[in-house]
């Protein structure tokens, strides 16, 4: 097998040959066509990916399908072109110099020759999005996947080979081995890494001076529902959407709502709402019965439950209540009125519904997270929703969305609060 550096050099050569002169629209169209295939549940590669997600990554079959749907619904030609427009203005700047408004200046944008992507064990979607973004700016992509959980990037690239061999030649997963990280960083023009702070720090240190680095860190997301949203008519639907947000990424994703703050004083009480979320999760699981290692999940939920009881005892807080699947291990919904006790994700479809009366209690609880905040599902009256969004933005949250949409970020979302494509490309200006 070729060495990592040789592989990256080869990818760069393929890129020059196959992508330099290829119109960006043709790339977007090709990716869009491939997405349509992936939307078909009986597609060979899709089925293979679902099997992998169930057996290796520990997602249920239903959630695996939902994750893939949410991914490929975003990777359509139309949406890819929209993303290019929103980030670069005119997508054709990737093909040639284009007039840039007044003054007769023309501009042209170029993606890095080779992007080295470093993926941690993760939910599968970011890896594929990362490669697709690289392809969109006509870069070659080399990816290092986690040996613990490789995700499905290899399956996606396999399918690309079948549908667009030219494009596929500019993408590869690097073989794992000692020094892979160092060699990849040394040879690439842009390094994009996903993972914990520790991982990002480690990778960053390997990036040679003058090369770009973008790190996407671990984040925390939650829901914030004002009392106006908890009406008798609305609450059951809201509970259903919340359950979906919880279920889809198994509460392991940076977009998973580990907590839902529910305001007191609405027609449906926070505890009543928690019970509705539990009922909705039960419903989702009735249709989705994958039960790999339910024992291990149940054991870890038991440990988490015990630790929580102890924590609440120590702080002399009321312990609240919980609803859990039978048999245990599929999901658990906690309710309590201690908004200040912000829990951390333990995965396993565990969600905490916390009562609050004044919004300051919520903001006090989330303030310590600052730059770690990611998405917030906010449900409130229109004016209040905007006011809450402004406060959340000030704290550092980078996405305010609707309940039920947490796991379906639009492609144009500023992942981790930054533009994606536009921070990856560099520009040349041609003056008249």
């Amino acid at each position, binding site marked *: 097998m070729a060495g990592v550096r040789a592989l990256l050099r080869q990818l760069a050569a393929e890129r020059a040959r196959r992508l330099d002169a290829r119109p960006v629209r043709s790339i977007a169209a090709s990716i869009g066509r491939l997405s349509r295939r992936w939307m078909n549940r009986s597609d060979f590669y899709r089925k293979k990916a679902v099997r992998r997600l169930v057996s290796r990554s520990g997602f249920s079959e239903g959630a695996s399908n939902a994750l893939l749907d949410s991914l490929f619904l975003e990777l359509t030609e139309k949406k890819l072109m929209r993303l290019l427009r929103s980030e670069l203005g005119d997508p054709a700047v990737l093909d040639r110099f284009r007039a840039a408004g007044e003054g007769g200046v023309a501009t042209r944008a170029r993606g890095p020759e080779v992007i080295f992507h470093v993926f941690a*064990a993760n*939910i599968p979607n970011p890896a594929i999005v990362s490669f697709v973004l690289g392809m969109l700016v006509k870069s070659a992509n080399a990816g290092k996947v986690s040996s613990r959980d490789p995700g499905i990037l290899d399956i996606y690239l396999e399918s690309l080979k079948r549908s667009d061999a030219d494009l596929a030649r500019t993408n590869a997963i690097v073989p794992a081995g000692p020094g892979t990280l160092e060699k990849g960083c040394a040879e690439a023009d842009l390094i994009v890494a996903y*993972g914990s702070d520790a991982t990002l720090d480690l990778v960053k240190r390997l990036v040679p001076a003058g090369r770009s680095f973008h790190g996407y860190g*671990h984040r925390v997301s939650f829901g914030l529902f004002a009392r106006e949203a908890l009406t008798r008519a609305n609450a059951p639907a809201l509970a259903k959407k919340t359950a979906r947000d919880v279920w889809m990424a198994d509460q392991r994703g940076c977009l998973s709502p580990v907590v839902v703050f529910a305001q007191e004083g609405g027609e449906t009480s926070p505890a009543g709402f928690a019970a509705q979320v539990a009922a909705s999760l039960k419903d989702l699981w009735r249709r989705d019965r994958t039960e790999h*290692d339910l024992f291990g999940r149940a*054991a870890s939920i038991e440990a988490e439950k*015990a630790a929580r009881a102890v924590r609440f*005892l120590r702080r002399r807080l009321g312990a609240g209540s919980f609803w859990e699947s039978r048999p245990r291990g599929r999901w658990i919904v906690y309710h309590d009125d201690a908004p200040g006790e912000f829990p*951390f994700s333990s995965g396993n479809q565990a969600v905490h519904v916390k009562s609050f009366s004044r919004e300051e209690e919520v903001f006090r609880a989330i303030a310590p997270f600052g730059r770690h905040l990611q998405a917030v599902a906010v449900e409130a009256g229109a004016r209040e929703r905007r006011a809450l969004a402004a406060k959340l933005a000030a704290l550092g949250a980078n996405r305010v969305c609707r309940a039920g949409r947490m796991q379906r970020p639009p492609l144009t979302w500023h992942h981790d609060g930054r533009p994606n494509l536009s921070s990856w490309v560099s520009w040349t200006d041609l003056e008249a």
Partner: protein
Amino acid sequence: MDKETRELDGAILSFIAGHADAGAAPDRAFEALALRIFDYQFGRNDNYRRFCAIEGKSPKSVRDWFEIPAMPSAGFKELVLATFPVASAVKKFRTSGTTRGEGARGVHFFDTLKLYEAAIPPPFEAHVLAGRTGLRFCFLVSAPAEAPDSSLSHMMGVVDRRFAGSKGRYYVKKGAPLYARLDADLRKARSPVLILATAFSLKGFLDHVASKGPIRLPEGSRIMETGGFKGRANEVPKKTLYAECKRRLGVVPARCVSEYGMTELSSQYYAPAGGLFRGPAWIRAVAVDPLTGRRAAKGRRGVLRHFDLANRGSVLAVQTEDLGRERAGGFEFAGRAKGAELRGCSLSYEEFLKGAARGRG
């Protein structure tokens, strides 16, 4: 110490004395004493009583010994769990540091060591010595004086006094293992020895011996190792460890004994020759099926819960995160619960703390 406590301790001590040689105690005797201790702890251990309230249980509602609410071992880290004012504690044992660091070490308080020290010798004699006398004790752990808050070191001190005339030698000084010295002493040994070590330090020593060439310990030598592997990355299967004991020290698996103890408990279990863990009559292990929350059928995997009658001063029922199976006469250890291994990109508590510690939270 008040009268009720003295009487209860007397009852526990006579239970221990009465069953020192026997196998299991009759269910009824165990249960009667367990419920009496539960009642006592419910009355005097405030945090435990509040925990029981969460579980919805009290001495009035609990009828069977295995229904007694079990405090998670994490409770020892976050709560004071004592039936007496801890200012009057004569001893504090601390759990070893975990990934969460020093601040989160659990503490087990004792108002007397009488029960603790009475509980140690009988099973040790039965399983570790197994009728042998005159063994030279080599402790691959810190001496009690050097590690006053280590329950393992304290226990070693107890068996040293009781069975080795306080002549045992300690081969960990200031936290550092003295492999070379132990190696040299063992090569000179002319009479049988007993090595007592954590599995982790034993592995370290075996690696050391590997670089020097095998030792032939005198016939009749024995090894006791204890699960010092918790939380360590380089876990070694017991089979491998025992195979190395044979190859490098000449001690066959039949002469190796595994100990299972916890800082949160007062009594120990032993698994001779890598078999079942067996405890004395005053401690029992139950495997709880996490899927149902009920006691698992014999032979079925569950999360281990211990009921230790010698744990009078804290809580007698302790919930672990260890997996195991109940078998006739003991239990089988089946590793640690590992459900949390599936990770994603959601922020973890440890990461958050680290970020906050660096002033970046």
